[in-house]
């Protein structure tokens, strides 16, 4: 018995097959979900993957959040369904108000692709229990609109409640406030981050590190033990 984890493909999604592979590498079963389909096929968790849904036209994630599939994702996330948003998926989660704040263009105005050092700040979410709090990891980052912003009160709340899940270390690649790389909702089932854990699951590929694999083993353990 394993867990079934859905990966939504929007028009312009790019990392859907990579994310399915990462889920497989972790030992779970990936399930392809389609943006026009409200049916989540009874998956146990959902990943909104990276890419440029709708070309990032208008604003990253702004159009995708109105897809039929998102109605169901929003409803079920509020009822506790684990949801992970990676990069464009994170942007969609903020546009859908499942996570607070929003993303602006990188402060240096260029696309940036690099092996990024992070600190795990919260190892209690549905997607991070296989890390330890304070652990330093390297995960590839690649984005154009990765500058996390929120109003002061929201930032204070995130910090006070320990909801900053990941923070950039050594170098802030996009001008994100408080060096925020990823956050969680209060319940800990919805997590979003800009770096791409699905690109760090095999020792031979990409940067050669597997620091992203615990995202997928964390959720698998949680679901199988549930």
């Amino acid at each position, binding site marked *: 018995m394993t867990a079934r984890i859905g990966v939504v493909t929007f*028009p312009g999604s790019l*990392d859907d*097959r990579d994310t399915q592979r990462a889920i497989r590498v972790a030992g779970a079963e990936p399930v392809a979900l389609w943006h026009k389909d409200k049916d989540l096929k009874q998956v146990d968790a959902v990943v909104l993957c990276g890419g440029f849904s709708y*070309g990032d036209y208008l604003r990253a994630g702004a159009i995708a959040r109105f897809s039929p599939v998102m109605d169901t994702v929003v409803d079920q996330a509020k009822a506790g369904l684990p949801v992970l948003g990676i990069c464009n998926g994170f942007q969609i989660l903020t546009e859908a108000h499942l996570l607070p704040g929003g993303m602006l263009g990188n402060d240096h105005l260029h*696309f940036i*692709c690099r092996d990024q050092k992070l600190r795990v700040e919260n190892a209690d979410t549905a997607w991070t229990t296989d890390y330890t709090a304070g652990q330093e990891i390297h995960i590839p980052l690649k984005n154009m609109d990765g500058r996390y912003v929120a109003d002061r009160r929201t930032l204070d709340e995130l910090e006070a409640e320990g909801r900053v899940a990941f923070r950039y270390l050594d170098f802030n690649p996009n001008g994100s406030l408080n060096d925020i790389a990823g956050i969680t909702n209060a319940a800990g089932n919805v997590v979003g981050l800009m770096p791409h854990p699905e690109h760090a699951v095999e020792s031979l590929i990409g940067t050669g590190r597997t620091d992203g694999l615990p995202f997928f083993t964390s959720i698998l353990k949680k679901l199988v033990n549930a």
Partner: protein
Amino acid sequence: MSRTPLDTVEHAAATPDVELPWAELGLKKDEYERVVEILGRRPTGAELAMYSVMWSEHCSYKSSKVHLRQFGEKAPESDALLVGIGENAGVVDVGQGYAVTFKVESHNHPSYVEPYQGAATGVGGIVRDIIAMGARPVAVVDPLRFGAADHPDTKRVLPGVVAGIGGYGNCLGLPNIGGEVVFDACYQGNPLVNAGAIGVMRHEDIHLAKASGAGNKVILYGARTGGDGIGGASILASETFDDAKPSKRPAVQVGDPFQEKLLIECTLEAFREKLVVGIQDLGAAGLSCATSELASNGSGGMRVTLDDVPLRDSTLSPEEILMSESQERMCAVVEPEKVDRFLEICDKWDVIATVIGEVTDGDRLEIFWHGGKIVDVDPRTVAHDGPVYERPYARPSWQDELQADDAGKLPRPGTGEELKDQVLKLVGSPNQASKQWITQQYDHFVQGNTVLAQPEDSGMIRIDEASGLGVAIATDGNGRYAKLDPYTGAQLALAEAYRNVATTGAKPLAVSDCLNFGSPEDPAVMWQFAEAVRGLADGCRQLGTPVTGGNVSLYNQTGEAAIHPTPVVAVLGVIDDVARRTPVAFQEEGQLLYLLGDTREEFGGSAWSQVVHDHLGGLPPKVDLERERLLGEILISASRDGMIDSAHDLSDGGLIQAVVESALLGGKGARLVVPDGLDAFTFLFSESAGRAIVAVPRSEEVRFNDMCGARGLPVTRVGVVDGDTVEVQGEFALTLTELREAHEATIPALLA
């Protein structure tokens, strides 16, 4: 153009004396007369539009064709070649039932006029070529050349080009794994923006551009047709720039990578369901090219109703619709009973698809507009029977003088301190400096199969997760070498790309090229071109790597000043298991450094002569392709059998440049000893070809030496991986921190 009355075929026949704007459309007088002769009447406006774009230099290869034939005539026997020159891209067998298609093209002129869109649509075009063969695109590479790094216009062109490549390729989800960035004043005003792509498919999925089977439907799908890019091929890419003429900016197309991503997915889904008989992308010359090529490559004719083409701008004339180079469009030939399913798939991906015509029994391409027949031609005469020129060529009068100006006579550094200063100057010069500021604007990781990406010697992609089968690609070119001797320069480009592929452990299989030259109307340029093609064709025969396709870009000159002749060569290789790849970075302290090959006093065209003396003269390094092949075999065997842990090819900048790169990437220094028989300067800066430096674990030293000895490859122990300095014993030492500062600060300081 006047549209009353409609210029139908009938009207044209009845009004032989109507003057047509053939000269404005780029046709020469004798070319126009040839069109009239073919048709037996004056062409209609629409026919003239088609002939003018399809007979342009860019589409017809009229100046280069007579030389390019050598790639076929001299092609080596190769079991690997599945589809050769002439299709959208060549296809190579890489084993296990997989086929790989790859190609390099130029988008030079548009990228100068409008850097972002020019470069972006260059990526879009080459990717559509790959899709049109039936393959899923898996990676892109971008060989780029700009004017002097500190010229103000370079700061306009380069950031735009890089952002355009990133903006388009990143949005398509294609990892950018290789390419080059070169600066030279000769490219001022004529930057070279070449774009390459690789695609993977199963053998049975290969598709070709042909329309066969009367009654089959012709479906245009993708973006609507607009007024952009009209004359891109004929007006822009087939003439030199001239300040006196009006701005050519409107001739540059505008890209929409999101639309192209949808086009990729819906095309691949249609292929999977076997819905497609023939397919062609719409690039240069747009519908004129797609309809005439599909029809002339198939068994029948074609009838097209132009009124059915979805438009962005309803006021476009039929001539404009035929010439438009609006991006992100494809044309498929589909059997009638499969049309519904094809349209359904397009609808799933929100892609507009329209039946615009059908394949007919005859042998004519007929196009209708508002009920009138505006085109009635034999499609072969449009697509294949364009003019062929035997342009005069002659070795330029200055060539002897250039070659006599020997770089060996330049003053050399006399002390360790001078050597050290020149090393720092070299590794921090724009051409030798780290290009990270550029490459970090490209996504390397998407698709999750990238094994190696720049600054590695070649990019490498895994294509089978279970077996680890992978492909590698390297692109190289050195305009300075080619200027000194175009025949040798082309072979050096081939040799370097071949070596770069082998250095990572992959076996070189096939070649694509992008030949960038000045005006073919200048006999000196034409001589450079003829020599380079001859050199490349001879070299490919000797190395056993056939040319599978490519692209020629002429008229890269402003006024009388042509660019250096710049043949860019891409070599594709295969590796059975990507786990055996060899990286550039030093892996472990204590490993022994071996120099493979012979080092001679060769400085003509070298980076040292450029950086230290601003000199270009003499002869380029000698080429020995048998040696290159042997070196390649050794590097591949050593990688497969685990005898080396890192390897780096030696090319521009010589040995010291390679060692510094391996040291900085690995974060480990090196102690070097000048071998007997060489002086320190030649050891460090010579650019003799056929060489690589490898790091051998001590446990493998005997076995590695035995292998090189048995196969007759000169091998010299030159040092050890050690510490945090690069030291040349008895001469100088530089810390990695100093080297990193020199190597990495240059490009951001100039361009960021």
